[in-house]
């Protein structure tokens, strides 16, 4: 009986020793595994993060020039309305002023100002710019000061 008890206690101690040995042999968890398990545990947060990035990317892409940008006809309401000579002269005066703020003018006036400047550069550039001139179908008519 005592012999049997000794065998059992010995067997138990061996099992415990074996388990301890096995535990000591387990390699430490690599950093990548830790990261992977963190990802698995936080999939929801990550998904939201990735989704947010994709949405931002999509928004940014939507601002980039689209393939059909130049093929789209300009809407009729975007066309410039005819401008009077007096108004053109007043715009020219504002362009000549150093203290200029584009925020004070309508988008249509700003387009006319840009046209005035480009027209001015082309008309004062001499023969070098002759080949760049394009016809708009009309001529700018500014009354003399």
């Amino acid at each position: 009986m005592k012999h049997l008890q000794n065998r059992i206690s010995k067997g138990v101690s061996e099992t415990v020793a074996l388990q301890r040995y096995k535990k000591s042999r387990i390699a430490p968890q690599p950093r990548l595994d830790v990261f992977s398990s963190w990802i698995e545990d936080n999939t929801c947060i990550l998904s939201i993060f990735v989704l947010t990035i994709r949405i931002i990317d999509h928004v940014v892409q939507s601002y980039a020039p689209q393939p059909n940008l130049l093929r789209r006809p300009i809407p009729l309401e975007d066309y410039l309305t005819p401008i009077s000579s007096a108004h053109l002269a007043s715009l020219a005066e504002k362009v000549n002023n150093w203290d200029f703020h584009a925020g004070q003018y309508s988008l249509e006036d700003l387009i006319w100002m840009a046209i005035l400047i480009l027209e001015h550069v082309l008309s004062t550039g001499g023969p070098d710019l002759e080949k760049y001139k394009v016809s708009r179908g009309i001529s700018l008519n500014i009354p003399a000061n």
Partner: protein
Amino acid sequence: MLTVRSCYQPTNHYHNFRHAIDVLQATFQVLVQSNILPPLNSTVLSNPIEPLLPTDYISPVEVLALCIAAVGHDAAHPGVTNAFLAASSSSLATLFNDRSVLENLHCLTISKIIEERWPALFDDEDGRFRKLVIEMILSTDMALHFEFMARFEALRGAIVGQPIDEKQRRLVCCCLMKSADISNLVFRLLV
């Protein structure tokens, strides 16, 4: 010009079409104040006059390129920075290898518009006009500001009283472009 306007995002509170015209007008003013261009008035429009400075300083072609670059220098700006585009692995950043992403986008946009709407501008044999516009727009990348300023400082000391070559003229044009781009800081604040 209508197409250029449509490329600027009205939802962008700063880099919109108004900013483009602000920069164009500032460029124009710098050219006028430097006696490169005469001021805008009816007499000039009906009777073209000779440029006040010799054309080998800044040629009329470079003046026109400056104005085109000024109008298109922020075209299609999405309202975020280059750093943001790179950090978010945006497709745009990937496309342009994280380098001057926005500036490359602006060049691409204005180039496409010019090719379609004003092809005569890019119709030179050596593509000089296009190169000029691209160089000036790329120079507006503030990440390259100090490197650019070092080049300009070196040039400034070298060209006093000397005729300048084409490369130096391009650098002067880029400097004018950069000055106009950030010129809003010197204007009166309207509150």
